[in-house]
């Protein structure tokens, strides 16, 4: 089992979500984050353009059985890109997941994902 963390642009959340559902992945946890990467974003402040130092991002956390990891990455990469891929489109991190417990039933392991 793996835990996949994806940092994406907020405007792509709906598309990514739909792509994941299409790939059979229906359970995710999302949260707000602020990212600092290569991309820069301009904002207006009283007629002056300022560069935002940290930009709003969405952080997805998805626990997966191993078979689903690659399809999941593919789905995210496809859906989260702006055009053919732009700076700031985000990153995916894959982390080993040792155990999963479903609280309601106490099930553990791959059925609990």
């Amino acid at each position, binding site marked *: 089992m793996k835990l996949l963390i994806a940092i994406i642009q907020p*405007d792509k959340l709906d598309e990514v979500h739909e792509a994941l559902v299409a790939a059979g992945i229906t359970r995710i946890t999302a949260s707000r984050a602020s990212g600092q990467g290569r991309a820069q974003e301009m904002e207006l402040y009283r007629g002056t353009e300022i560069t935002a130092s940290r930009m709003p991002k969405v952080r997805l956390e998805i626990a997966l059985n191993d078979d689903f990891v690659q399809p999941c990455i593919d789905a995210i990469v496809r859906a989260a890109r*702006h055009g053919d891929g732009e700076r700031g489109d985000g990153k995916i991190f894959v982390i080993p997941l040792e155990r999963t417990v479903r609280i309601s039933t106490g099930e553990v392991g791959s059925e609990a994902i």
Partner: protein
Amino acid sequence: MRLSLPAALAVLSPSLALAGDVMALPEDTGATAWMLASTALVLLMVPGLAMFYGGLVRTKNVLGTMMHSFAAMAIIGVLWPIIGYAMAFGPSVGGVVGWDADKVLLSGIDTTWIPILDETRRIPEYVFTMFQGKFAIITPALIAGAVAERVRFGGYAVFIALWSLLVYNPLAHIVWGGGFLTGEAIDLAGGTVIHISAGVAGLVAALYLGARHGYPRTAMHPNNLVMTLTGAGLLWVGWFGFNAGSQVSSGLATAQALTMTQIAASAGALTWMALEGLLHRKVSSLGMVSGILAGLVAITPAAGAVMPLGALALGGLASFVCYGAIAMKNALGYDDTLDVFGIHGAAGIFGAIGLTFVLRDTPEHGLWTQLWFQVKGVLVAGGLSAVATLVLLVLVDKTIGLRLPPREELAGMDHALHGEHGYGLTNVN
């Protein structure tokens, strides 16, 4: 009730209100004070509306949506003194629009006075002009709710400017300013001129622009119901100026209008709460404020002409009507984002017609004639608004564009159009 329209008539008809005649009346500093206060109260409805609407959209569109209200204040705020007042309250040209070169840029009214409702005293014309100007601002700002979350800012700005010139000003003239319906339909504070015209325009615009991406599949949650509630509170407060100010006086008629406004708003809220409580075992805050608005809209044309029981009835039933109208929208599946037609259109039509049956005094021409006048008012306002709105939508859309491109719609108006985020507080900074 607005039947007698003293202010407008005084301005229009030289026979009735020769400058000398008006100046012979004593100054009414009390009525002036109330009209000034009413003007401030109606202006309060602009931030109120911005909050009400702004809280209902998704986080990424909150600023853009609020700017729709504020932009109306900026754009119509400039257009109205330049030309709007001349078009609405100048001497009639064929009954459909006014014109008075002297009112352009308000140049001729810098020191003029008009009589109050009962023509016993006078107030400066400017206070009437400014009070009416706030109505001209609010009306297009209402429409914005129907196309929220998917409209270009530039296109919207041009659209409301044109709409104000081609729909609002003529309609205000027709119903209030001496046009062909003046003196027929009872419409104290704009049931037809404001709510029906805005509601219908919103419906047409929503249909023309099409639904938001993902609607109705994706649930779209209000970003800040807390703000929506607060905005509704400010709208209620401002509505006192709206309705009671429309009596152009500070006396019995004014007090009546304020009383009926208060009663209808409460009745609307209570009814909606009861409906949701019965049907869902839950009473939502959005439902409650929707009921407030339904009641307020329905009483708007009627506040001067009905008694407390009538106000209770109009306000309470308006919630039924709007509840049904919104259920119908959901069934039909079109995307009137913030239910401009479902609330303003539906309650506006209901109030304009329904008031006939709860009038304080039997109308001059009898009930059925009055009913016909009311229906005629609805049809004219709705018809004019529908047709002209469609023409303007096509015009603006084909030239500078109205619908936001999909990418910007997804990114959200705040970032894409305005280069800002509404709530820096959710970001780490």
